[in-house]
């Protein structure tokens, strides 16, 4: 980590100028750059990114990946010869974000809107997107209320993987890596994500280990930066294992404060989502042998594609960080949109109607950063989850995982129309 790593997020203006300049330069150097087809007016793509608050790092990662994608696409000649132009707006609270969404569609007249992370916001965005009749591909947001779907058959909204999948994957992997677990304590943030993850994890673990006891559950407020009292309570519970669904700076903090009192010397640990802030989990305070979830992209995947390796390299060079999973949600959204437009355009290469793009998106499967990804017919993202045991054997100053377990959403996400807990209790184990 360097000193004063400045986060140069270009403003929308700057970005348009940049893209515009790139296009102009390409056109000027006849034959040298990709010449966009005649009448190739830019395709406006709306992007909603969180800039402030606890999820700001996640929003920044999604935006950076989208910008990386746009640059690549424009270098390669755009979509059907039209250059891509990103119109970035901020995702904040539901009320303001609904207004920004309407602005993108009604005022800027974008072809598609990408982004949306917080569940509170995307629950509000879902119906709005349906009203406005423009495709909306959400990075990390669902329209789930708790663990159940509220919009089972959307026409325009495309949603991220269900919120609780990482906890389910961790529940499946726990008995494999930790033998003889009898008591489990849980800690998560006090909002729907924290509660849903904990309940899903318990449900899954109970299927594998029917005698397991859940001895303590703690739900500190989102944004708390001191967990000393919580850790003391966890120590007193004498549980065999701690399950934690923190995903932001709080994951780093609890790891540090747990190390300070030697919590994981006696206790096993499962961190379902802490891989979102993986490069802040320094070796000095993060022990080996914890189950750590990277969600849907693992930057150091030994089996990773050339595309992933290039992305990680360029991301590191530009932002001096290693990319977290949100990048691939964002990349997949953008790239699947491009693929769908090209598919819908057919041989005639005529720009398709929005409804045709939506049709083409349904069921489409493409090569994304983390591997193959697809849109399920009911507009839910299908991909793979990466979790594994923490190790210090790497060239970084933070932990990575080895072996890497890859679990597909086909196994760990409830099928379309299913009720989560009925589905889990119906598993054959």
């Amino acid at each position, binding site marked *: 980590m360097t000193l004063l790593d400045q986060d140069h*997020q270009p*403003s*929308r*203006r700057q970005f348009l100028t940049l893209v515009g300049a790139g296009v102009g330069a390409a056109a000027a150097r006849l034959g040298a750059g990709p010449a966009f087809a005649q009448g190739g007016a830019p395709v406006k793509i709306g992007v909603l990114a969180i*800039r*402030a608050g606890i999820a700001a790092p996640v929003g920044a990662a999604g935006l950076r990946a989208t910008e990386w994608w746009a640059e690549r696409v424009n270098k390669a000649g755009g979509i059907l010869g039209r250059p891509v132009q990103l119109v*970035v*707006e*901020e995702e904040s*609270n*539901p*009320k*303001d974000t*609904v*207004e*920004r969404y*309407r*602005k993108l569609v*009604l*005022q800027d007249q974008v072809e598609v809107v990408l982004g949306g992370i*917080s*569940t*509170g916001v995307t*629950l*509000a965005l879902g*119906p*709005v997107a349906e*009203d*406005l009749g423009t495709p909306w591909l959400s990075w990390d947001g669902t329209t789930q*209320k*708790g663990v159940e779907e509220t919009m089972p058959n959307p026409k325009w909204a495309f949603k991220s993987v269900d919120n609780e999948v990482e906890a389910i994957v961790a529940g499946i992997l726990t008995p494999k890596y930790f033998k003889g677990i009898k008591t489990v304590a849980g800690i998560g943030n*006090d*909002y*729907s994500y924290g*509660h849903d993850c904990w309940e899903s994890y318990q449900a899954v673990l109970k299927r594998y280990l029917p005698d397991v006891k859940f001895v303590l559950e703690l739900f500190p*407020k*989102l944004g708390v930066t001191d967990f000393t009292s919580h850790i003391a309570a966890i120590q007193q519970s004498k549980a065999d294992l701690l399950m934690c669904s923190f995903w932001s700076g709080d994951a780093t903090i609890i790891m540090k404060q747990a190390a300070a009192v030697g919590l994981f010397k006696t206790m096993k640990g499962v961190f379902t989502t802490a891989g979102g802030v993986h490069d802040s989990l320094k070796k000095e305070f993060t022990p080996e042998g914890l189950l750590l979830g990277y969600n849907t992209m693992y930057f150091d995947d030994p089996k990773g594609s050339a595309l992933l390796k290039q992305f990680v390299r360029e991301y590191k060079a530009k932002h001096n960080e290693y990319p977290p999973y949100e990048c691939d949600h964002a990349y997949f959204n953008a790239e699947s949109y491009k693929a769908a437009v090209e598919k819908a355009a057919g041989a005639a290469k005529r720009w398709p109607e929005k409804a045709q793009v939506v049709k083409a998106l349904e069921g489409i499967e493409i090569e994304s950063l983390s591997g193959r990804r697809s849109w399920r017919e009911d507009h839910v993202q299908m991909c793979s989850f990466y979790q594994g045991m923490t190790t210090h054997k790497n060239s970084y100053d933070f932990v990575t995982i080895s072996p890497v377990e890859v679990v597909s959403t086909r196994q760990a996400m409830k099928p379309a129309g299913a009720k989560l807990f009925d589905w889990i209790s119906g598993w054959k184990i």
Partner: protein
Amino acid sequence: MKRGLGLAAATAAMAVAPLVGGTYHVLLMLPFMAYAVVLLGLNLLFGYTGLVSFGHALFVGIGAYTGAFITSRTTIRSLEVILLSAAVLGALVAAPVAALCVRYVKIYFGMLTLAFGMVFYTFVLKFYRLTGGDEGTPFLRPSLLGHAFDAMPKIDYLTGPYYYYSMAVLGLATLVMWRIVCSPFGLCLKTIRDNPAKAETLGIGVTRYRFLAFVISAVYAAVGGALLGPPTGNVDPTLAYWTHSGSLVFMTLLGGFASFFGPVVGAFVFIYLQNWVMSVVPYWRLVFGAILALIVIIAPEGLAGLVTRRRPAPAERA
């Protein structure tokens, strides 16, 4: 007379806006009208009684959640019922809060209201089984004067019937507030603001008047909060967070708390300015913080103060 003309022009402009304006800008008028109702109430406390509440998002939240509960948990859709319930509930919650808060003034009053606001926020966030927690509660499309408008696309509904309904509510709220501030009650409030001791000797029950002003302003906030719900379609705890209370005070100050219509102007400018600044720079909070600082220092009477210039702005007195 001049004010009457301006008012007529503003009303006429608002009435024709949906016919001539771009859809998006017309939609932005909806939160403006909702906030205008909230701020008319807040200013009875701020401008007329001299008490600055840093917890009025509490009542905005009460109003919004009332509507969300009624539409998503019962079969009632009538906006009239919703607004009325919001007003009653706002008053019911405000009564004990006001009884405790109005015993204090200035900074203590602000802090106590902030604390109450945060209690409500934490409550909404904590008891997620009841309130939906951070996911909030949907605010389904309410019916207006018995018409459901179910077949109408949401945007048309919002820019058509709902727009004019909001306008009517704002008109009515303005009229009632005007009567209040011009009544002997309103004059008493101003006396209390300027000189509580004198008011007491004149036989005005200072605490009782402050209490009433607080409750009325809470009712306005709840009604405005209920109007804020349908355009978003989902009601969530951020509506009750302390920074939202801060924004309400910001809007009031921006427009000018010393004038009757100042806060309404403030809401208008705030919303359109935020819309613009957010699109142009990612760091819009920095810009807004600077604007707020400038207003406090240079133009504490807000935009209305700059326009009317009835009293010279007391800037640079320090």
